[in-house]
């Protein structure tokens, strides 16, 4: 009797520890390191993934999932024993399409009492608190987080019917009012924008698949001349000095802000359709299915930052969403892959130490 009680207690302790989202408390670095708080423009998903000092978080179908290292099992961010984790009462439910991290909290924007509100919650999913009202339902809302601030405009990116042309900035850590930081009336209809350090980048569709990228300095309060490219933001990377992009069928391009010169720097990968992600050490080119019922598995190419091919691997798994990116993000040692980026957390990964070996293995997460 005693023995079985002990066994039951051990099982209960193990079960409870698997729902503990408060690991690891031994972290001694800066919890606001910019790698945790920057806008992740290289990701294949869209403000769904965050990396923090406690672990990684992923947003899918309005639920937030947690994995301690990105490849361990992704659990819904709720440890309430009475919760079935399938409705709006669950701690993991945020009813939002983007999440961000700052100073020990997870932030998101959701609809509450007829308006868009900024919310925050603890990193274990508890205590959802409405921080401040941002826009009314009629005004609509699109926003992006970076380094403790939310940049937003009162409209829907890429869609018609937006009337307010201002860009607002507000701190996430207090309940102060948002301030207008610039007016976009003169640059045309914005179909995308995001923050990146001191700059805001705006994509404006011109015609015939051409986009103009404008940038605005939030330090110097100044617009710069636009650059015209034949690629949407999914294949573009921008830093302070340069714009990098890939055009299917044409190849890789670079633009230098100082010289205002565009250069064609490398040829196209092949005739397939690719998305491209630029990272510190590597450039990843991941193939899209061209038709819904394609029988050909997509390729994943790895280039160094000088556009030399390092390695490649066939992603020989069944993709659920043929139009979705299979690439999610890069962490320190791994690259995360998903068969359905919008519906569930990453389910496969590549190990970076195998790049260049000619023998990369596609591994399944422990889900």
């Amino acid at each position, binding site marked *: 009797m005693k023995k079985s009680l002990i066994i039951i207690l051990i099982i209960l302790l193990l079960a409870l520890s698997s729902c503990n989202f408060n690991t690891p408390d031994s972290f001694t670095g800066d919890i606001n390191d910019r790698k945790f708080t920057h806008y992740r423009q290289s990701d294949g998903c*869209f403000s769904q993934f965050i990396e923090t000092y406690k672990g990684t978080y992923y947003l899918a179908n309005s639920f937030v999932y947690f994995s301690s290292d990105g490849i361990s099992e992704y659990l819904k961010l709720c440890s309430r024993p009475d919760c079935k984790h399938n409705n709006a009462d669950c701690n993991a439910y945020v009813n*939002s399409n983007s999440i961000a991290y700052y100073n020990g909290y997870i932030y998101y924007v959701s609809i509450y009492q007829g308006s868009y509100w900024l919310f925050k919650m603890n990193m274990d999913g508890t205590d959802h608190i409405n921080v401040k009202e941002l826009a009314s339902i009629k005004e609509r*809302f699109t926003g992006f987080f970076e380094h403790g601030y939310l940049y937003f405009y009162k409209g*829907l990116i890429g869609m018609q*019917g937006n009337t307010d042309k201002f860009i607002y900035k507000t701190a996430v850590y207090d309940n102060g009012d948002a301030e207008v930081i610039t007016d976009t009336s003169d640059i045309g209809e914005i179909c995308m924008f995001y923050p990146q350090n001191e700059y805001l980048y705006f994509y404006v569709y011109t015609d015939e698949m051409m986009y103009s990228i404008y940038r605005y300095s939030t330090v110097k309060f100044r617009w710069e001349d636009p650059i015209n490219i034949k690629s949407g933001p*999914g294949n573009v990377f921008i830093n302070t000095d340069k714009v990098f992009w890939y055009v299917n069928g044409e190849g890789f391009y670079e633009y230098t802000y100082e010289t205002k010169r565009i250069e064609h720097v490398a040829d196209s990968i092949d005739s397939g359709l690719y*998305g491209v992600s630029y990272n510190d050490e590597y450039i990843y080119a991941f193939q*899209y299915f061209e038709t819904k019922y394609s029988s050909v598995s997509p390729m994943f190419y790895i280039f160094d930052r000088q556009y030399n091919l390092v390695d490649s691997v066939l992603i020989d798994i069944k993709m659920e969403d043929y139009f979705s*990116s299979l690439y999610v993000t890069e962490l320190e040692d791994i690259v995360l892959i998903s068969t359905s980026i919008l519906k569930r957390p990453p389910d496969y990964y590549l190990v970076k130490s195998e790049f260049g070996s000619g023998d990369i293995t596609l591994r399944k997460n422990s889900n």
Partner: protein
Amino acid sequence: MKRCTRIIANIVIIILSLSFIFLFPSASSDFYENEHNNENYICRSALTTGYGKSKIEYSDSTVLLTSELTITWRFNGSYTQYVAPMVCGIDYSVAEVEAYGGSAITFCSSIHSYKIGSSYVYFVGLIP
């Protein structure tokens, strides 16, 4: 007889030609009718490659209704999909919300959900 066959053939060709003209852009829609607290409600959902709509009607005009619409879209020339923030319409008797795509984007899928008071009564996903 021959003349009749020719007329039928011509009609078939005209119908086929018209169907090609009017089927573009692709579209899908959904109609759902049910009862909530013994009162009738109807949910109508629609999506084309550039337009989305959610609409709920409810017989009891004293309860607040909510139509919610979330659209997944992609840029022309790029294949990454994005999810637009949810838009919603809130009103008594009839609540509806619409979203029109700009020139640079194509709608890929949508989720339409409907609330009577605070209760979710129906949701449906559409592909154009």
